């Protein structure tokens, strides 16, 4: 197990390094220096600015300095908003986005598993049919379409929820709903198919034959095994939710990370785009790492495999 964790950790570091390197060289490919974008400055000021941002150093030195700044979690300044740095945007936006993300994941996982289990238990019944139709629709409707429909129906036409911003629990309902539906649908489909497979296994029959109550068999014996595939896709789902926050925060005017990111794209604020991309990627890769470790801890077969394989 320790070996597995070390291997995964090394892979994670390499992935982040590749993203950081890619970002750095792409940023250098962009025409023009980040500094001469706006107004013309005189020669001395220009030189001082370049020295301040280490732009007068050779590329390789800049690269090392850049890696150092990433290692110390300092993502640099914004060029379009002189008073802001990527870090100040991060520290303001990230808690809000994290709140949105955590609620979305909880909603998606709980409702998705429940929907999948009910569908599997009533296989080919009405509930199964309805649940799977909802699931395919949930996968097919993009979150930004769903978000606008929800605003139109539940905020504009009927005054159930506020249409935008992020200040009270009522404000959070529509964004979470819009963001959670897609992942929920994916989880529901996966839970259903894996549950259907698990329910035909011999150990389920044994558990039933022992006289355990059906509820106990389903929760303790079937669900526990059926949920393993769900754990594996949690990382991918997190990536989807994270990118989803870009559009959801834009639509609902939520002052989170995603909104700053989209604003920086529209303003072509390159240092902010690059800095946030590296931050997002590192965050996601770390999450994938955690999910893999959790999977290794949950599934005893991985440990066996690791010992056998040396």
């Amino acid at each position, binding site marked *: 197990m320790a070996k597995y964790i070390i291997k995964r950790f090394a*892979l*994670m570091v*390499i*992935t982040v390094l*590749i*993203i950081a390197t*890619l*970002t750095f060289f*792409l*940023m250098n*490919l*962009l025409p023009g220096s980040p500094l001469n974008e706006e107004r013309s400055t005189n020669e001395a000021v220009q030189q001082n600015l370049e020295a301040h941002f280490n732009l007068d150093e050779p590329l390789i030195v800049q690269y090392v300095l850049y890696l150092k700044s990433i290692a110390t979690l300092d993502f640099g300044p914004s060029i379009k908003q002189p008073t802001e740095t990527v870090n100040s945007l991060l520290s303001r936006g990230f808690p809000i986005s994290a709140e949105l993300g955590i609620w979305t994941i909880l909603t998606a996982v709980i409702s998705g598993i429940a929907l999948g289990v009910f569908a599997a238990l009533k296989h080919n019944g009405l509930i199964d049919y309805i649940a799977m139709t909802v699931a*395919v*629709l949930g*996968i*097919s*409707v*993009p979150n*930004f*379409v769903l978000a*606008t*429909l929800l*605003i*139109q129906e539940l905020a*504009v036409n009927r005054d159930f929820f506020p249409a935008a911003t992020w200040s009270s629990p009522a404000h959070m309902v529509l964004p979470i709903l819009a963001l959670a539906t897609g992942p929920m649908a994916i989880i529901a489909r996966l839970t259903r198919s894996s549950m259907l497979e698990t329910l035909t296994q011999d150990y389920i029959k044994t558990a039933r034959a022992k006289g355990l109550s059906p509820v106990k068999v389903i929760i303790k014996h079937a669900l526990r095994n059926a949920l393993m595939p769900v754990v594996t896709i949690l990382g991918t789902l997190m*990536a989807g939710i*994270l*990118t989803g926050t*870009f*559009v959801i925060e*834009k*639509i609902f005017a939520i002052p989170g990370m995603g909104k700053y990111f*989209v604003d920086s*794209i*529209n303003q*072509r604020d*390159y240092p902010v*785009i*690059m800095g946030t*991309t590296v931050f*997002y*990627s590192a965050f*996601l*890769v770390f999450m*994938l790492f955690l999910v893999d470790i959790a999977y290794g801890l949950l599934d005893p077969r991985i440990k066996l495999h690791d010992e056998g394989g040396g």
Partner: protein
Amino acid sequence: MLPAAREKETHHHEVPDEWFKPKEKDEQQAESVVRPSLSYWQDAWRRLKKNKLAMSGFFFLVFLGIMAVFGPILSPHSVSEQVLSNQNQSPSVTHWFGTDDLGRDVFTRTWYGARISLFVGLMAAFIDFFIGVTYGGISGYKGGRTDNVMMRIIEILYGLPYLLVVILLLVVMGPSLLTIIIALTVTGWVGMARIVRGQVLQIKHNEFVLASQSFGAKTKRIIRKNLLPNTMGPIIVQMTLTVPTAIFAEAFLSFLGLGIQSPFASWGVMANDALGTILSGHWWRLFFPAFFISATMFAFNVLGDGLQDALDPKLRR
């Protein structure tokens, strides 16, 4: 044999001559006994036809393809034609889907968007197909150290967040149809490569591969002629599911302002433009692009699901 006949036999009664007549050779009857012989593809098509949901998805996509080609011609208005006196008109006889805030015809723009979406989706699927199949085929067939190195590369690429890389590339390359397709395929082929490699690993030890090898066939020929035809099922399913992913990504990027630029129309651009008008009640501006994005993704998803069942030999009855 009839029970009565059996009785006669056992009792050594007189046996009528007509019992010993040779059975007439009736070719047609002989054929009718066994079930018709079907190739893999015929059987898959037969099973797909029984799946009503998948077939409705298929017919919707055919319809969409036809409309993407001929839809803009049906309408007298062009994609970028702006008539400022016709701003935000609701659907009518002259403008079937209404007009937008610049007086552009939503009907024409919707089918133009269908062109963009289908083009992006199909191109992404085909490029993923070529790179992924080549990479996965070589990796799986060569095995050993080659496979190990190739798989490490895939593992790293797989860990890169897809849409973030795409956004990064688009920021640098600048948004256009070509750069979107490039950005989508830079890491998009990884899934296909993994599937092909897994399939090739399963079948490469079969006798027909060995036979080919003993005839001196080159690696390229074995992969192309022996291995790939036998993995087409999963490959096609993966391609069907790549298309909606690419269509979603294009709409998503256009929605963020990184996609197709005005005056051209894509469903994502139209939905983004319509966002500000929800409160003013111009529902048609959002409804048509939103409906067609969702319906197209739905159609590809159900068709992919249907193909998955139809092309799985284990489910053959």
